[in-house]
């Protein structure tokens, strides 16, 4: 649906203030996907999403949307094309001088073939869809942030676009409102078979509603894959940092109080992180492994994370026994969980061993 190839964008090109915002980004986003792009401030996220509807013209590279190459399209054709790509913003960007209805009608009024009644009907249909059927005559200043973004969504979808671009659409909202907006986006994707691109710096947003994610770092894509893959086995350092702060907070807190070494010592226990995916999260893996190998396994920390459509369980366990038993237990575990990360051997502090 969206295909970016070798996109380079340098602001103020050819001057001494040149800013390389994107340094060769390639992406492919399939129809009906919710695709997240995450990165730190200044990574080039906004630049990237604005290139998809050509609000920003890339310095080089190709942008193909729904089979059409946009970089060579003349301005008038481009304007037409933009009507099939909706966009919502962090600051909502609603007209303060217009009512909710008038805001939603804005893109419809640009189409001279539509009559008054047609526009009016479409507007009330859209407002019902986003749950604002009773707010049509309000002005944006009279709405909450979440409601404003719903108006933004209704406006963006007015022309029946196939793609919805969201630039930090939930960054100005509190966590609860964020969740409700993300739920609405998922609902609309299913209802309208939309392709949605979400730009964010919040891993929670990715976790709650994306199918796939790309990590943007300094104008290049550091890593991309399905959300579950990225969360369970981040390869890039920045990804790991983002993922850890989102799902491993408890785990990391627990580990902070332990001293871990790499070599086995008499009486030590191995500390490993087990990741469970979906249904395997319910299997009695721990008990069975303990029975099978004779290792004593204790649970140190754990958390369960619901992604949209998938469950990821994270468990940190201590496996005690002789070196041989530990090795065997780890091998058994490795075969039965989604992923096993060996963290080290725990050394008991002197006062602990004394008791």
């Amino acid at each position, binding site marked *: 649906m969206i295909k970016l190839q070798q996109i380079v964008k340098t602001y103020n090109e050819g001057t001494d203030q040149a800013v390389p915002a994107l340094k060769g980004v390639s992406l492919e986003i399939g129809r009906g996907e919710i695709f997240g792009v995450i990165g730190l401030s200044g990574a080039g996220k906004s630049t990237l999403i*604005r290139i998809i*509807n050509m*609000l920003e013209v890339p310095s080089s590279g190709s942008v193909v949307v729904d089979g059409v190459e946009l970089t060579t399209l003349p301005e008038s054709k481009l*304007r*037409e*094309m*933009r*009507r099939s*790509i*909706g*966009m919502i*913003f962090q*600051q909502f*960007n*609603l*007209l*303060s*001088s*217009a009512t909710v209805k008038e805001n939603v009608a*804005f*893109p419809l*009024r*640009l189409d001279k073939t539509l009559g008054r009644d047609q526009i009016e009907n479409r507007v009330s249909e859209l407002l019902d869809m986003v749950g604002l059927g009773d707010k049509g005559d309000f*002005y*944006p*200043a009279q709405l909450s942030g979440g409601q404003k973004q719903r108006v933004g969504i209704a*406006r*963006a979808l007015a*022309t029946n676009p196939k793609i919805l*671009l969201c630039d930090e659409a939930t960054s100005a909202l509190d966590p609860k409102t964020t969740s409700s907006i993300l739920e609405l986006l998922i609902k609309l994707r299913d209802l309208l078979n939309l392709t949605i691109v979400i730009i964010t710096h919040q891993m929670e947003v990715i976790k709650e509603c994306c199918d796939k994610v790309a990590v943007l770092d300094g104008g290049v894509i550091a890593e991309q894959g399905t959300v579950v893959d990225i969360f369970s086995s981040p390869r890039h350092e920045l990804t790991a940092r983002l993922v850890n702060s989102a799902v491993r907070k408890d785990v990391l807190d627990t580990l902070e109080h332990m001293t871990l070494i790499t070599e086995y010592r008499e009486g030590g226990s191995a500390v490993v992180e087990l990741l469970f995916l979906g249904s395997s999260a319910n299997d009695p893996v721990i008990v069975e492994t303990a029975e099978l190998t004779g290792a004593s396994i204790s649970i140190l920390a754990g958390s369960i994370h619901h992604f949209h459509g998938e469950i990821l369980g994270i468990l940190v366990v201590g496996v005690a026994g002789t070196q041989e038993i530990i090795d065997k237990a780890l091998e058994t575990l490795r075969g039965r969980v989604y992923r096993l990360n060996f963290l080290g051997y725990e050394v008991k502090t002197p006062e602990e061993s004394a008791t």
Partner: protein
Amino acid sequence: MSELLMSWGLERTLANNIAMLGQGTLDTLYMVLAATVISIVLGVPLGVLLLVTSKGYFWDSPRFYAVLGAVVNALRSVPFIILMVAIIPFTKMLVGTSIGTTAAIVPLTVSTIPFLGRLVETSLRTVPYGLIEAAQSMGAGPYTIIGKVLLREALPELVQNFTLTLIVIIGCSAMAGTIGGGGLGDIAIRYGYMRFQAGMMVATVLILIVMVQLAQWLGDTLARHVDHR
């Protein structure tokens, strides 16, 4: 009019003076309103042009903006009374004479167009750029954006700008009156100053004050009415 007043029992000179003030007020209103309307009709496009050719806007053109900006600044820095005399040939060319209320409209307009243009530019700049981008993302072209986004969103400020322009023109029109422009300024000079009729002087000043107050009140009310932020 003075006959009518005398038939009510007013003394002749008083009746004449009141009639004269009435005529002067009408002349001033005519000058002021005509000049304001023309200033708005030409000043708003000037402000829009200044904005959209400035850096970062959709017809970004540094050289054009610099030249237009310099002309605007030059006109703004000439005191009205000097401008009025300086453009007498231009006024004559346009309306055939440089004396009278209609002739005064020309310098009034010339001096306020650049003034209003800058005000409009500044007001339009307060419209968040995100709104322009949102409109672009919906497929809107430059003219739609100017009309349906920029001018519409800045309307409360624009109303304030128009009020200010109206008040400045009231002030300048009195000045124009002193050098043959007619209206209240003319009366103040000829009777209040040259013939030492303090009453006439006070009366013209009072009428001007009332005009300015009314304009301000009207502008504030209107601006509040169109402001939904």
